[in-house]
């Protein structure tokens, strides 16, 4: 493998890792704090992309579109939590799987009904198009670098919020022992809404950044959801640090696997890696609940 290809594929891998982290952060926090397995997390990713495409096309301004899409996805997340999913925190995992599976069907079909079956397109502003030379003679798309940068920035911000603010302290307390945190006066209901809508916004952010690269279409969230679940499981459900480490690892393994391995093996390599890691540590790399 030539040095330029190595650099390029490493960037691709870290970029995929950054996207996966944005997805897995919400999944892992929602499970860690509310004990809810949310299969509909991929629908929020899809909604982020659709909202961004619709708002950008309506306003003609990409940045306004992005801001509106993030707000709208967070709002959908908050509504979902308040109106439906909070009733399922104390229910069995089977019921959680069922209700979020039903939500996927509903979200997919409503999107198809409203936006039509054809994939949407939305244009990037000129600043974000084109490419730069990352090495002499090796161009790389600017937008992919932006995705990478945003992902790492959000990861750093999440780290600061969770480790160094009062809200973050409550979230950590809620994740490690919810009844005790509630007994000590943490407003758990507020934490629930905050975590769920923040997780939704992060999924929406991942979706709207993937939109211009892939296609904005119904069902686009499901493949990413599966990868994010793999990340969550490897990292240890509930652990942000685990989600970050696992997201980067899966991003790189998947990218290099597809380049270096035969197609069938390349498509399966992350699942094989997952199985191997779980044989070694069944609770993931950074287990939260001792």
């Amino acid at each position: 493998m030539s040095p330029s290809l190595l650099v390029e594929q490493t960037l691709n891998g870290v970029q995929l890792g950054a996207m996966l982290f944005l997805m897995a952060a919400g999944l892992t926090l929602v499970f860690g704090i509310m004990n809810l397995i949310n299969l509909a997390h991929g629908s929020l990713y899809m909604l982020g992309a659709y909202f961004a495409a619709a708002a950008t096309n309506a306003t003609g301004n990409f940045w306004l579109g992005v801001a509106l899409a993030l707000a709208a996805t967070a709002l959908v997340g908050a509504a979902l939590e308040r109106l439906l999913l909070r009733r399922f925190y104390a229910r069995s995992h089977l019921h959680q799987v069922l209700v979020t599976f039903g939500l996927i069907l509903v979200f997919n079909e409503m999107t198809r009904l409203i936006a039509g079956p054809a994939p949407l397109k939305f244009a990037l502003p000129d600043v974000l198009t084109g490419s730069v030379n990352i090495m002499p003679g090796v161009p790389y798309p600017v937008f992919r670098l932006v995705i990478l940068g945003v992902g790492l920035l959000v990861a750093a911000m999440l780290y600061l919020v969770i480790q160094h603010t009062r809200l973050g302290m409550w979230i950590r307390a809620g994740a490690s022992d919810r009844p005790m945190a509630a007994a000590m006066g943490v407003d758990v209901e507020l934490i629930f809404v905050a975590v769920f809508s923040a997780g939704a916004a992060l999924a929406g952010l991942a979706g709207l950044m993937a939109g211009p690269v892939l296609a904005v279409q119904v069902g686009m969230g499901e493949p990413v959801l599966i990868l994010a679940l793999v990340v969550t499981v490897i990292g240890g459900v509930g652990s942000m640090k685990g989600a970050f480490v696992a997201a980067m690892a899966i991003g790189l393994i998947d990218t290099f696997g597809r380049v270096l391995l035969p197609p069938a093996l390349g498509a399966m390599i992350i699942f094989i890696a997952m199985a191997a890691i779980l044989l070694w540590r069944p609770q993931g790399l950074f287990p939260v609940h001792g």
Partner: protein
Amino acid sequence: MDEPVRPRTACPSRDGLVIAAIVAAFACLPPVANAIDQPFLIRVGQRVVIFALAASALNLTLGFGGMISLMHAAFFGLGAYVVAILSFHEVNGDSLGTGPLALVGTSHLALSLPLAVAAGAAVSALLGAAALRTTGVYFIMITLAFNQMLFYYFVAQQTYGGEDGLQIPGALDLAGLDPARRTPYFYVCLAIFAVALVGLQRVVGSRFGMVLRGAKQNERRVITVGVPAFRYKLAAFAISGALTALAGGLMAGAEQFVSPAEMSWSRSGELVVMCVLGGLDTVWGPALGAAAFLILEFGLSNYTTHWQLPFGLIVIAVAAFSREDVAAWARRAGWRA
């Protein structure tokens, strides 16, 4: 907290009667469909019987073993692909693989169906052994990931059509019967389904089934009395995977076509919905759930192409209002994640 595990067969004749009634009701379908001149209903009934078999197989792990598997569609697809690929190689006149393990292709279902069952048992035992090291939410997510692993495996098989699927090129043959003749093939599937259901009823009522149900309620206690619960759960998972692959093989015969779409993870979710619709605590419930599911799907899709919207709402309602006693065990099983 835990109720004692009693032999399920407190009233064995009742469960047996219900099974007989379900099989008899299914058996009436072809003459009725022909009498009202709606022969396409036989095709719908064919799907119902095959999915009833798959859902009943899933329920051995889901309902009786408390293992929420989201990878059973992969076993279904695996069974279908075994039948299709063997027929593909017979028509091509080459062999599958090389060396001493090379298999000659065949279009005889009497050969390929047992091989589908064996493949289902082997793959479910292998992947189950990895997945069963975990419990609760980890188990759900891992089975989901394994489902996609097998899905992508078959998507990558360009020889067998990749993403587009594989049209079975030759005429299949089941001991002289062409599966394309719908009515006789329907009765063959029904007979296999009936035998499987009676077999599952016996398994659940046996000591093996008691250990399985005991492990669902309190695995630690089962281990403490000296029973290796892991082996029982793995054996149940393998039986379940093998029967699901059998259903997939029968489907390949009925449709003459296989595709990775049949093994997507949403199909796994649908199988779980079938089981929950019919009830998890009987052997025959999932068969009724499969019938309800497919009839609902068929009915709604006649009215609107957007049938998944009302269908999703129904699934949400089922999740919101289904009985809490089912929830109790799963919470206990899952809480230790």
